[in-house]
C-alpha cells in the first residue's frame, strides 16, 4: 500500500525530472530509483536533492553514503522526508 507521502513523492520525481514515460503506478516503492529500476542517474540525484530542499527544507550532502542510502528507493526517501521535513 502506498502512503499519501509516497504518492506525493512519486509526483515530485516525475515532475522534477520530467520523466515522460513514467506514471506514478510505474514506480514500485521497493524498487531501486537509480540505475536499475527507475533508471535515474547522477544528474537526476542532484536535481532531486534540490527539489527536496525546496519543497521540504531538507538539506542533503551530495555524494555521501548517507544520501545514497536515502535515495535507495521510494520508501527510504519517504522515511527521510517524514523524519527531517521542516516545510
Amino acid at each position, binding site marked *: 500500500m502506498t502512503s499519501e507521502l509516497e504518492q506525493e513523492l512519486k*509526483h515530485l520525481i516525475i515532475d522534477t525530472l*520530467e520523466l*515522460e*514515460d513514467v506514471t*506514478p503506478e510505474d514506480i514500485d516503492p521497493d524498487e531501486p530509483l*537509480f540505475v536499475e529500476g527507475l*533508471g535515474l*542517474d547522477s544528474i537526476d540525484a542532484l536535481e532531486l536533492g534540490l527539489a527536496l530542499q525546496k519543497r521540504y527544507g531538507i538539506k542533503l550532502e551530495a555524494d555521501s553514503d548517507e544520501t545514497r542510502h536515502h535515495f535507495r528507493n521510494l520508501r527510504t526517501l519517504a522515511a527521510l522526508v517524514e523524519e527531517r521535513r521542516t516545510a
Partner: protein
Amino acid sequence: MTNDTTHGPLLATPWRERDPARAVAWQTDAYAETPWHTLAAFQADIGAWQAALDAHTEPPGDWMLSTHDPYRFGCALIAAWERGDRVILPADTRPATLEALDALGAARLGDIPGGLTPSASPRTPRWGTLEAERIAVSLYTSGSTGEPQRLDKTFAQLNAELGMHAALWPLEARLTLSQVSHQHIYGLLFGVLRPLCERSPFASEVCRYPETLHQWLAHWHAQTQREAVLVSAPPTLERLPETLDWSAVDGVLARIHSSGAPLPRDAAEHAQRLLGVEVREVYGSSETGGIAWRIQQCDSKWTPFPDVEISADSEHQLWLRTPWLTDPTTWTPQADRVVVEDTRFQLLGRSDRIAKVGGKRISLTAFDHALGELPGVRRAHCMPLARRDGRLGAIVELASEAVPHDHSARRRLIQALRTALAPRFENAVLPRYWRFVETWPRDAQGKLGAACLSRLFADLDDPRAPRWLGETLDGPQSARLTLEVPERLAYVEGHFATQPVVPGVVMMRWALHAARESLDLHGVCRDMTRIKFPLLLLPGERVTLTLDATHDSSHETAHDDAHNDAMTIQLRFTFTSQRGTHGTGTLILTPPEGVHHA
C-alpha cells in the same frame, strides 16, 4: 573563378532583356487566360513588388522572403536585388524562425504573416547594379545536425554555380517542374534561378503531388510538344504511385534531378521505371552548393562537378575547393566522409557528431549506430535537447511489429533499449526522450530538418499537445497523423483517478490543430455532426488521426443558419488505434474572414 561582372548567366541579368513575348513561367492552371507569364508581365510584376518595397523602406534593406509559388518568389527576389537589397530565405515559416529574423531587423516579404505583398498595378521596373561580391541571399541550413546556420551567398558564387550547371545540363527551353522548396539552395538554383537565367520556362507553382505531376506533364506536352525537367527529392520519388498511367506521359521528361538526401537504389529504379528517365542525383549542401552527381543505375560513385576539386584525408574526411565556396582558393573540410577512387568517390556518411551531456563528451554517431543495431530497430538519430539541459532525445524507426501501442509496451521497450545500451554507455548519457516512428520523418527536402525535430518534441513544452510521430499526406485535403497520448498530458485529469482518459473535446481540438498544421486549413468551427467517442483513449496510447477535408459551397447543416450559402469546409476526423475507433465525427468550418480556399 567567374568574377566577371558581365559574364555568367546571373550577372548577365537576362530578365532585363527586351524580349517581351519570351516565356518566363508556365501557367499550371489549365484554365488560365494565357499559358504564360511573359517577360513583359514578369518585368511589370517586378515593378509592382518594387513599388511596395519602396513604400516601405529606402534601399538597401534586408528582407526575409518566403512564398508558396516559384513565380511569385522570382518576382520578389529580382525586385529586391535590383533595388540593392539583400534577401534572407527562412528555412521554414514557424513563428520562432520568423521572429528570430525579425530580431535581426529583416522586414517580412511574401506569404508569411505580416509579409509585404506587391501593389496591385503593374509598374515599370527599376534596374540597379548587381555587384559580384554583394550578398545576394542568406540561406539557412536544415538544422538536421544542430542549430540552423546562416550562410551568405554572393552574386559571384551563385553565378559561378549556375554557369556550371547550364554548361553541364542545359535546359534548352525545356519546362522546369519543381517539387521542392525554393527557400533552400537546391530549389533556389534548380527550380527558379536556372530556368530564369537560361531563358527557359518554369512552372508557376510547385508541383506537390504525383497526380499533379501526371496532369501537368500531359497538359504541357499537349500544349507545346516540348520536354520537361523534373526537380525532385527522395520523399517524392519514393512515393510515386504505380496506379497512375505513366505511359501516357512517356518521353515528356528529359531529366529528373534529386537532392537533399541520397536516394535509395530501389527508389531510383522505381522512378526510372515509371517516369521513363534515369534520376540524376545531386550531392551538395547549403554551405557548399553542388559538389557531385551520379546516376545510380550506372554507378553508385559520385562524379564531382566540373571545377570542383576533391580530396580525402587519412580520416576519410572530404575536403573541397570550388569556385562557389566562400573562399574559392583554399581547401575546406566537410562533414562527410568519403573514399576517393580515381576521379570519383563513395560517400561513407557523416563524420562523428559530438555532444556534451552532463558535462561528458559523447559521440551521437556512436549512439545512432548502437541503437540501429538492436533488434527491431531500423534506424536511430540522437540529439541533445537544449530545453532539457542537453539530455538526449532519440528518434527511433522500428519494424512495425516492434512499435509500442500503449503505455506499458512503450515503457517495456524503453527499458529494453536502455538495458541494451547500458554496457556501452554511462547511465547519465542515455537518451531520456524517445520518439518511436514507423516511417522516418522527413521534410520536402528529404531531411529530418529542424521543423520535423521541433514537431517531434513539441509536446515536451506544451502539456496540452499530443505527441506527433509523423504524418502522410494523401493529397491536399487529407492527411494521416501518427500521435501518442503523453502520460503527462494536462487534460488527463488527476493521476489519482482510476481511469485517466483523453476527453472527447480534446480529440476535436487536436483534429482542428492538426488540420491547421498539416493541411494549412484555417477555419472557425461553427458546427459538428456525427460525433462519436466509442472507445476511451488512454495515456500512452498510440493512435492514427485521419483527416479528410471537403470544401462545399452549398452545405446545409441541421441547424437553420443564415450563412448556409457561404463556403464551408467539412473536416472529417477519425482517431483509431489497434484497439479500435476512439473518436470520429465531422467538424463544419468556415474560413476566417477574407480567406477563400480554391
